[in-house]
């Protein structure tokens, strides 16, 4: 009776772990079966992956491992910085993954299932440990790859791996405990923490015919900002601050960092809201131009704020005005491409993000080689995406 034994196994598992683990196992098995059923497609994907890996391998083989090794040896000489950096990554990864899983188990379709609290806790433990092990494996593989590429002795390998791994475990543990602490807070306190009410009303930001749409973007930004979604970036920013830095340049660096972190968050929240609004307003007589005008206002406001803060930060660090102007132009064009892609792929936001990362990376490379051409290309790309978005309406 395989069915009965399967049910018995499930029941036994439930006492130790959350049935979500069984769900993942079954989903994986279904995917595998689907891959086998669609074997020509699977074969094609495998061949393509092998070809890409071969290309990647050929590219990696050309990297000067000794030069990277030198950087890593220098890093190994600063164990505290390395440990803190990896702790920050571990914290961010474990906190966000555990929080997402905990929310899913509590509020998702398993929410009302009679699962013992201890089984849920054990599953969260297991997930955090598995993630940290995976992270450690990635660190080990990257460092081992550099050792393979290096032609000289690699005395930095063991100390760096140990420091990175220790930092990663500590950060990951702290991330896990942060989620546990959040779970222990009373509901009212959590609601208060995540309140989205803005400090200052900005009626001028509103669109005459799409009232509250910019406000929706703004409130989503404020909610994410207050819930600490970008705290790990502040930790990374803290690592960039050199010891004994004079007060004015320090203020400038912090201003620049905060402006960039906030701008990234505002842009992302605005784009997510745009995707949500697309679905909400789908059956309304709304032209794309009007929708675009309504959803442009808040990101534009965010760009003006981030430009002002960031440029001030740069000037405080004694940067030349042309650098500040280039900074304003760069974040403006980056934001514009990202926003135009979000309009274009408003029904497929994941694709918008992937393309935004790829295109911004391409533009950065181009800006390095042909700085005069990059802004023009950026504008052309944004215009192309806008026209494509408009044609979909």
């Amino acid at each position: 009776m395989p069915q009965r034994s399967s049910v018995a196994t499930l029941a036994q598992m439930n006492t130790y772990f959350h049935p979500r683990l069984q769900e993942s196992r079954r989903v994986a098995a279904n995917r595998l079966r689907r891959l086998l059923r669609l074997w020509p497609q699977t074969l094609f994907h495998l061949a393509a992956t092998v070809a890409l890996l071969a290309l990647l391998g050929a590219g990696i083989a050309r990297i000067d491992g000794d030069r990277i090794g030198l950087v890593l040896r220098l890093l190994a000489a600063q164990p505290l910085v390395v440990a803190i950096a990896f702790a920050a990554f571990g914290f961010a990864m474990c906190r966000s993954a555990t929080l997402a899983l905990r929310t899913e188990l509590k509020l998702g379709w398993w929410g009302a299932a009679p699962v013992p609290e201890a089984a849920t806790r054990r599953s969260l433990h297991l997930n955090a440990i598995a993630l940290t092990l995976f992270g450690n494996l990635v660190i080990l593989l990257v460092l081992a790859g550099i050792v393979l590429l290096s032609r000289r002795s690699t005395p930095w390998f063991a100390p760096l791996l140990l420091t990175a791994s220790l930092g990663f475990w500590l950060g990951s543990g702290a991330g896990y405990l942060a989620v546990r602490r959040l779970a222990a807070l009373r509901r009212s306190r959590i609601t208060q923490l995540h309140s989205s009410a803005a400090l200052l009303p900005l009626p001028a930001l509103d669109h005459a015919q799409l009232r509250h749409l910019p406000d929706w973007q703004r409130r989503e930004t404020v909610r994410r900002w207050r819930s600490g979604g970008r705290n790990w970036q502040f930790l990374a920013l803290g690592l960039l601050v050199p010891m004994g830095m004079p007060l004015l340049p320090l203020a400038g660096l912090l201003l620049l960092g905060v402006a960039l972190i906030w701008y990234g968050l505002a842009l992302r929240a605005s784009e997510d809201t745009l995707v949500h609004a697309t679905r909400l307003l789908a059956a309304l007589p709304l032209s794309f131009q009007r929708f675009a005008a309504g959803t442009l206002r808040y990101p534009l406001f965010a760009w003006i704020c981030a430009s002002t803060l960031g440029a001030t930060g740069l000037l405080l660090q004694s940067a030349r005005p042309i650098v500040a102007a280039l900074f304003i132009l760069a974040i403006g064009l980056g934001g514009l491409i990202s926003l135009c892609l979000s309009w274009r792929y408003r029904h497929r936001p994941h694709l918008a993000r992937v393309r935004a990362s790829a295109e911004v990376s391409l533009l950065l490379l181009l800006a390095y080689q042909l700085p005069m051409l990059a802004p023009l290309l950026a504008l052309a790309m944004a215009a192309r995406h806008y026209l494509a978005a408009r044609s979909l309406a």
Partner: protein
Amino acid sequence: MSALEIAGLVHAYGPQRVLDGVDLVLQPGEFTALIGPNGSGKTTLLRCLAGILQPQQGRVAIAGAEMGLNALTAKQRLGFAVDPTLLPMLLTGRQCLELFAGARGLGQIPAATLDLAEALAFSRWLDQEVQAYSLGTRQKLGILLGLIGEPPLIVLDEPMNGLDPLSAFALKQHLVRLTREQGCAVLLATHALEVAERFISRCVLLLGGKLVRDWDSAALAAIRRDPGTSLEQVMVEALQRFGAPRTD
């Protein structure tokens, strides 16, 4: 001019053909119930006619405006109740109504919408954020958003779900008034036949991607007059006759 014209509508999810050549014409003032078992394609049909899904074949015209050729005009003439799961959690009910009113080119929330909000006991929630709403309250807001501006065609998908009896009654009265006084056509997808039976002027049965039965007002009146039968019973007989699959 018809409030709604659907001709040869086909929509498939992968190899699964959910709508298989649907034809339907609604006249102004008709209050039509769209019925059918689970998975018969009711929601897909409504989403196709609202322009949310693009059908693979066929044409949809709302009060003379073709959805495929002139979506903006067609949507101007259509009111489609919003799925409560799509509501923005961080806005208040009033802000949502103002947003929709603006998108429809209305300067402010129409008085009729505020009156309906009052009748649905929604007024006290107007200035609360959606995240504070119960399921029924969200449903009310979704309906109010769909009815804003009282366009010629109103489409509602299971609007009575989660509504308390008083609110459900008030909504039905309001819809009947809209059809009789404003000449709006209402298309309502529902499983609650006993609820629909007393108010509708027409009923269509969707089965296997096709509209297989159409009861006009005379047929419905005959059903109502006969104490030995009901719309539910007639529908069950029709389902058996057309071979609806039993999944329970």
